[in-house]
């Protein structure tokens, strides 16, 4: 629906500057667009293409490979229930069935009020805490049916302020101030670091390495 806002465009340029080549910022910028709109809008992909200097089709080509990028709006809360082997052994599929019943939709669908989308996902790296699920990529471990219902009730009543809307991942970003950047240039402008050559040479000649 929308291109990146002015603030986000500034952030996008800061992100692009961290890579030897701009195209590497494609995935981070898709995350940024998804954070802004809750999903990855077509206009945002066009904007990203302009920023990193590739075609919009290339952005789509990359983004469509990754399952976290949603090209259509999803619920404000994305409920990912793991059903992979470790969770399956301890009730992951039953938890998914319960989640579907509680929310009245099946996996892959979104509730009519656009609050929840359920997904049946692959391993989320919480195997020793099975069954596990994520809501907007925040973990919930050893979830019972009662636990699940309680979380949903809390979200519905607005008491879960720790869960940002879908699209926001890490709530803190890395920032590198321009004067703190050590050495980020395209690969063809790089050569052997001076410190590396000097320090290794010092040892080869038996001198002090510092």
């Amino acid at each position: 629906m929308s291109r990146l806002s002015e603030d986000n465009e500034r952030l996008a340029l800061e992100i692009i500057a961290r890579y030897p080549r701009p195209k590497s910022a494609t995935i981070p910028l898709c995350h940024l667009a998804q954070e802004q709109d809750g999903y990855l809008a077509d206009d945002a992909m066009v904007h990203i293409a302009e920023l990193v200097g590739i075609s919009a089709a290339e952005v789509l080509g990359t983004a469509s490979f990754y399952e976290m990028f949603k090209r259509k709006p999803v619920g404000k809360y994305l409920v990912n229930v793991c059903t992979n082997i470790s969770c399956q052994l301890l009730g992951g599929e039953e938890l998914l069935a319960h989640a579907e019943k509680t929310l009245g939709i099946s996996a892959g669908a979104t509730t009519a009020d656009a609050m929840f989308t359920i997904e049946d996902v692959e391993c989320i790296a919480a195997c020793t805490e099975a069954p596990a699920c994520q809501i907007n990529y925040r973990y919930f471990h050893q979830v019972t049916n009662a636990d699940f219902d309680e979380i949903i009730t809390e979200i519905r009543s607005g008491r879960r302020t720790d869960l940002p809307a879908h699209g926001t991942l890490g709530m803190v970003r890395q920032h590198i101030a321009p004067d703190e950047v050590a050495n980020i240039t395209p690969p063809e402008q790089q050569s052997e670091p001076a410190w590396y050559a000097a320090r290794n040479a010092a040892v080869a000649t038996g001198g002090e390495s510092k």
Partner: protein
Amino acid sequence: MTDTSNTNGTAPAATAQIVSSRWDTLDGHTLEGYKRSGSYRGYAGLEAALAMAPSQVTDQVRAATVLGRGGAGFPAGVKWGFCPPGVWPRYIVVNGDESEPGTYKDRILMERDPHQLIEGCVIAAYAIGAAQVFLYVRGEMAHAQERIAVALNEAYANNLVGRNIMGTDFSVDIVLHWGAGAYIVGEETALIESLEGNRGMPRLKPPYFPAAKGLHLKPTIVNNIETLSNLPWLLCNGVDAYKSYGSEASPGTRLIALSGHVKNPGVFEIPQGTTTFRELFYDERYGGGIRDGHALKMFIPGGASAPWFFPEQVDLPLEGRVVGAAGSMLGSGAIVVMDDSTDAVKACLRVVRFFARESCGKCSPCREGTSWEEKILQRIYDGYGRPSDLELLLDVADNISPGPYPVAADPANGVDAIPFPPRQTTICPLGPSSVAPITSALSRFRHEFEAKIVKRDLIPLGSH
């Protein structure tokens, strides 16, 4: 229930603590906490490294035989040595795309001790002369991304990353990068493709090692989170101290995620190569035994890609070469225990379904084969299997991984182990990995498959 605060994962008492020493420290993830707590003083390892020449740091890592913890178990120091001389720049890409089913260790390291990882990255960058480090964190791990971002901002502000680190002439940037949900990106060349802004598909080999041609076709070292997290302790305590843990061939410790039907599942740091599966499953410090009223049926010793082991393999040590010779692999340190309540067909189907869903689609044997494997297994599980399905399944599997597939020995039936790794008709091991659960389950529990297939014949005529 625990929620977003992540209080799980057990730092085991009275065992080795190289990488897990700050897991129970409330502020171990902050710079202040990192310097104050744990089994070594934070950033003292970097200090020690900077007092040496880069080549001497590499020598130490090589002498300690720091094995890669991502799955292949390749020695990190040797890998670093593959960077061709005179070709610049060199990059380091840190593989934090942990998504092998059963694996849960890198996420804890990133969430609870991010400075340990950052210090490891800086040490590695110093050793090889890297221009830049990219820390690729799995997209779904929002909390880990936050913790690393905060730690990196702290490290930059305190002159531990960036320009003139610790007041020396050494400078390097570390950039945090998020993935976006794709298991295959854990494969190192796919990781590099993804980092270049492309679809995460593995590259055709040769070149076999990104160390020769990696990111932007420049020498690139791809190391796992746990591998790099070992470096600060190693540089602080030395090669001999490191080698005092574990076995000759596999020194040091290893993080093992023990999940499934044990009483006390958790992530444990164990001496590498010496602990046996039996100790891990039954010792009170670790698994504490199989669930009451049940017995061990089978276990996956190294993540979903590993062929299964059975009760007669429990006395093997967790040593890469031994496990390989016995027909499987230790992989990413993920052990899934299944007791006698487990339906072998269902477990096999679930693991195969994972590979079918995660196949990137580049090689046809995998793209087509894994989804056919899933379809055939699904119809068997649903009771609609055909008598010819088991041979068909093995035939499809043989197209992805030709020849005998690694299996564990079965003394009761006089079957010898076929050693790991398998052969493959694909660029990467994802497709062949889908064959592991099939041959494992069929070699031992063929009767369970046959029972489900036969069931259909027993539906009385006229009942439809």
